[in-house]
């Protein structure tokens, strides 16, 4: 029985995944397809539905708002270095072609009933609200930084599903604060802008950038997101699902 089910599934999946791919003999290929496969498909999947590390572009908010590459283009040209996406040196027409291909794949993905990758909001409803609340206020110590009435008020209206879960696990792009004490005793307060083992850089409250060799100043960094990284080793999968259940009540 199981074998028959698997075989059917394989045949079905084969159809789904081959149809949008480079093997579709019946439909003429879009010009952006070859460029997409060469440059983007390894990370974002050949059908733009997600691959190694790169997100599913067919569900991307940015893609949804894009018109003829006006939003996609800048991301392609500038990359997203903080997320590991390099810059791509492509011509205007190539970007338009890529955008057209992504939009076509998005349309195709949306027309399909199941049989595709991705995480739905309804997939992330297996937790227990009370257990999540207990973890939030207890073992997780979330309440030492966050409050459902304060920073997390209506959080579930701002972030949904996978996006909310990713923010919960680690809020990427959150900026640390820094206080720098100069040799003359003056203190500068601002946001951490750069740090390696040799130099430290910050943006002050007026928006100006400053940097120093690390051994010429004293500084303290406050990076609240580190607490999220420390929790990763402590969570059970149930803890995460329960926290999700609780956070999703904060509408």
């Amino acid at each position: 029985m199981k074998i028959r089910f698997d075989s059917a599934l394989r045949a079905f999946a084969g159809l789904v995944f081959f149809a949008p791919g480079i093997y579709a003999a019946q439909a003429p290929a879009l010009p952006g397809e070859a460029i997409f496969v060469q440059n983007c498909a390894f990370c974002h999947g050949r059908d733009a539905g997600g691959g190694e590390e790169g997100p599913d572009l067919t569900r991307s908010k940015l893609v949804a708002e894009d018109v003829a590459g006006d939003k996609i283009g800048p991301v392609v040209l500038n990359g997203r270095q903080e997320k590991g996406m390099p810059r791509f040196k492509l011509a205007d027409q190539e970007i338009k072609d890529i955008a057209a291909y992504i939009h076509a794949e998005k349309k195709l993905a949306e027309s399909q009933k199941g049989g595709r990758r991705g995480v739905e909001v309804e997939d992330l409803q297996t937790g227990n609200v009370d257990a999540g609340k207990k973890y939030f206020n207890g073992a997780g110590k979330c309440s030492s930084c966050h409050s459902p009435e304060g920073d997390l008020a209506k959080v579930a209206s701002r972030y949904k599903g996978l996006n909310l879960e990713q923010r919960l696990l680690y809020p990427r792009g959150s900026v640390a604060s820094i206080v720098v004490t100069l040799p003359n005793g003056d203190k500068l307060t601002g946001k951490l802008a750069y740090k390696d083992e040799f130099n430290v850089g910050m943006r002050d409250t007026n928006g100006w950038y400053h940097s120093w060799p690390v051994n010429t100043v004293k500084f303290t960094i406050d990076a609240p997101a580190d607490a999220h990284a420390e929790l990763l080793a402590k969570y059970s999968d149930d803890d995460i699902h329960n926290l999700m259940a609780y956070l999703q009540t904060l509408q």
Partner: protein
Amino acid sequence: MNPLKLTLLAVLASGLAGAQEYDPSWQLNPPTTSWPGYHGDYSGRRHSPLTQITPENVANLGLAWSFQTGESGQLKCSPLMVNGILYITMPDHVWALDARSGHQLWHYAYPKNSGFHIGHRGVSMYKEWLFYTTPDAHLICLNAKDGTVRWNVVIADSQKGYWMTMAPMVIHNHVIVGVSGDFDNLTGFLKAIDPETGKTQWRWDSTPPAGTPNATTGGMTWMTGTYDPDLNLLYWGTGNPTPVLNGKVRPGDDLYTCSIVALNPDTGKLQWAFQPSPHDTHDWDAVETTVLVDGPFGGAQRKMLMQTSRNGYFFVLDRTNGKSLLTVPYGPVNWATKVDGQGRPVSNPDKEPAPDGRLIAPDEGGLTNYRSPSFDPKTGLFIVDAHPSYGVYFAKPADGSFGWAGADYGVWGKGILEAIDYQTGKIRWTHELGPGGAGAGVLTTESGLLFTGDAMGNVLALDTKDGKTLWHSGTGVPMQSSPITYELDGHQHVVTSSGGVLFSWTLPDSLVAKR
């Protein structure tokens, strides 16, 4: 003494200055004036006997030259250096450079094609010919003198979803090539190609043909192996099974995916296999360099093979028979319940990808990836660019059983250099490399130095014994390749890359002359 060693002695005795033809036996014990294979020598230790640059003088290291490819891609290759000429690659590109000045001798551009252009790891050489793999899975033989094409053969069908990035490996008269292809249910394989004619000499399949009931596909062979000339064994790591995240349709261990295999390089016959990740569902290819070390272990002298595997475990094997000597994690791992009697981690079924997600350490990129580690014989340290990390893995029946068959997302990670005592697995020292992860390879030298890069784009020279920084230079973006070193005109050079730029570092004349 085996005949290859005699050949080597003959080569050395005849002097290399006049020799333009490359002999693969150079990799048995490469002249320090060359870097003739992907790993330098066949052992995969990425350790050089050169001692001109030392912990005491490395602070004076400066730029000899840099070379701009002019391409927006990243150099991910390990350069080859033979007879004063460097050969570097990107997908669709090969360059030959004068190692003295960095100026270009020739540039070969492969015609536009729709293969995956994800990275390229270098060329290999035999006599006066170079061997280059292409994004659409061809093997090209180029004349090393001028970059003209000698022959071009198809290794795999790129229309089925194969592509190639790897640096071929030359042993005897075999050019050994492997393939990539994770987005389709495809059989992984190795082929030995005749360097003279391009004809296939043998083929070894890592998995059964696609469509075999209840059997896995995958086991791609996308990194260069290592070789023991005395045992005449070729060691190769194989990639993850497919479908990637859905293990239900491929029950059991899924041999020979995520495996280290020992083959006879003349016949392709399997001698033994060890599987770091039985029944993988997290994309953890076991293709990381299989480092060959002879030395004491547990009181006895051993011929060993070591791997810091993408799945988070450090493995030491007896390379004569593939038996486990040591299995120990070298960072956070949470996917295995125990290590079995054969030294294999046993995967926890509760940590397979699920509809509501599973938090997994390490993430899909793994605790390390393809960039080379290094083994330093003097300290007994195995030094690796590690990536402590977490990812969240999803799979549900609707994701099917083809290709990726699920979705996963990196959550958090950082880069840290680790020096592992190979006899115990204990981490002797660590060196933080920055948020996200660094991804640079490691080179050690006999003078007690190591070269690598951090997550912010600094190239670093550290003291091998304690990991302290002795020199650095900002190169713009993080190094995505593994450093090499060689001697030229009495100067030791260290070659690194960053983005699309190649850098050659050396000491000033004044310091070299003093020696």
